[in-house]
């Protein structure tokens, strides 16, 4: 187990370097003058250009720039924005809300998706099965921003059940509707995945054995069936948590949530390369670690899987 974790961590290093380098190149090696439009209509003051070039090592090649940046990053220094704010502080201010939103979204999609999946997987063909299949089709087809606007208009403005926008404190109650919007697409995938997985395992030998032993139905479903069907669903939920922590740009924009998605969107448009690379690097680390943890959880759920 320990050796497996170590090997996986070592495998993460080239992927991490590759991904961050890719992002660094895409953000910094953009063709055109990096100072264009930064000082309003006039061209920038030569002293300012010289200071900036020196500060961000812009006169070096992109490889040298990248490794200097990586060196700072490993010491916990995310760098500064052009206006002199520490990127680390910006992230610390914005990230908690995004994590909160992602957790709510994954919780909602897990509860509703798994419940719908179990219901249809156990019952087999019938009215409920078709109903769930059709609703998942619709959830998959409606883009997130349409769902967001519709729920905002209907439940936020017309009915007034939920607040239409999120205040700067972002309480849990305010984040329920945005969380639902964010998780709605994955909810459909979770319920389909659970349904397929359960329908497959329902006919397995261990189920017949459990039934023959005369175990109560609750135990057969709750322990034998669910635990064996959980792996693909858990993999999906883990990947999704990693994705949602960085992919909430649209939802955050619609509901005015002060999270990391809005920060990164603004920084990309304002060419704040330091902020973009800093945030994306953080998101990539989170994504890779979440996937590693999910891999390790397999052994807990299914003791037949061993890491040697």
């Amino acid at each position, binding site marked *: 187990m320990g050796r497996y974790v170590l090997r996986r961590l070592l495998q993460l290093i080239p992927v991490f370097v590759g*991904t961050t380098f890719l992002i660094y190149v895409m953000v910094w090696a*953009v063709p055109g003058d990096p100072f264009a439009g930064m000082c309003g209509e006039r061209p920038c003051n030569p002293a300012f250009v010289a200071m900036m070039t020196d500060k961000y090592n812009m006169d070096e090649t992109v490889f040298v720039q990248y490794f200097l940046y990586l060196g700072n990053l490993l010491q916990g220094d995310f760098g500064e924005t052009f206006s002199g704010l520490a990127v680390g502080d910006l992230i610390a201010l914005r990230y908690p809300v995004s994590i909160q939103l992602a957790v709510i979204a994954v919780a909602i999609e897990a509860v509703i998706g798994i419940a719908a999946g179990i219901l249809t997987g156990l019952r087999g063909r019938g009215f409920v099965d078709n109903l769930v299949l059709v609703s998942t089709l619709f959830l998959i*087809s*409606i883009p997130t*921003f349409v769902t967001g*606007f519709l729920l905002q208009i209907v439940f936020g403005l017309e009915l007034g059940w939920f607040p239409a926008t999120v205040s700067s404190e972002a309480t849990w109650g305010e984040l329920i509707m945005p969380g639902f919007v964010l998780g709605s697409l994955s909810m459909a995938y979770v319920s389909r995945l659970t349904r397929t997985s359960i329908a497959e395992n329902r006919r397995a030998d261990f189920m017949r054995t459990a039934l023959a032993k005369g175990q109560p139905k609750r135990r057969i479903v709750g322990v034998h069936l669910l635990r064996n069907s959980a792996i693909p669903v858990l993999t999906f939920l883990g990947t999704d948590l990693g994705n949602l922590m*960085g992919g909430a740009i649209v939802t955050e924009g619609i509901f005015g949530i002060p999270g990391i998605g809005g920060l990164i969107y603004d920084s990309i448009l304002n060419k704040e390369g330091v902020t973009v690379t800093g945030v*994306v690097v953080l998101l*990539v680390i989170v994504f890779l670690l979440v996937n590693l943890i999910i891999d390790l959880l397999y052994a807990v759920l299914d003791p037949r899987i061993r890491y040697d």
Partner: protein
Amino acid sequence: MTDPTIAAQADSGGSYVTALEHADGGGTGKKGKPRSLWSDAWGDLRRRPLFIIASVIILFLIVVAVFPEWFTSADPNHRDLSRSRQTPSSDALFGYDVQGQDIFARAVYGTRWSLLVGVGAAVFTVVIGAVIGLLAGYFGGAVDGFLSRVAEVFFGLPFVLGAIIILNAFRSSGVDSAFALVMMVVFALSLLSWPVAMRIMRSAAISAKQQDYVKAARALGASAWRIIFRHMLPNCLAPILVYATILLGSFIAVEATLSFLGIGLRDPAVSWGVMISDARNYIRVAPHLLLFPAGILTITVLAFVMLGDAVRDALDPKLR
């Protein structure tokens, strides 16, 4: 209206099967032989209502995309501020937008761009993913290790963020013809999504490599090139084809999301996403600006997802 569509569908369906039977070696037409995966799947698909509905919608959309002038006589770019934000009437089926442009006409002409992005990105993704996946699966070892790490690098990029960064980098290069805009979005989408296609193809290739027909071909002295593209490719095609159909629908939705963020398509290529993006500041006073393009978008994506579902069920009976 209905008859030609159905006839066209039956016709295209027929050629679809022949092409694939041909790829399969042409051995399926004779009686007494076991039916191939493809003809079996086709026989199954023809009886599915979901498949028929989805293909009718998609064929209709293709006709609209190619000949938009058949469906509306209004000029999609004609502006008249006096009719700004008017609700649907007999003159304009979907009403007018903020600039007083006919929403129905704009939606009809927008079909072309939305479909182009979806089809283009799906084709590119599948071609890149299939070639790399086949090479990784066939050669294995160091080649596989290297290609898989490269795929992981791209897989680790968050999708929407990656697309925004790529498109933003292109934006400063000053492209503004409609076709170039479409190609930019297609490139960004396929660059970020080929790793999944590659993994699907790779696992199919690894299992195909163990089969007797590949060993036989190698024993007869066939080159690696010939084994990969003549023998393994036709047998590994099913899973990736299913993935491509579902992907096509989601690419159309992703394009809309990117255009909504103001970073996907823009003015000469007015897709449904661009229309929704233009409407977003007026949703409280004039929801029809948002609802009509969003509705068409949803129906289109729904059709492709339904088609993908039906094809998957037909090609992979285990999941039924």
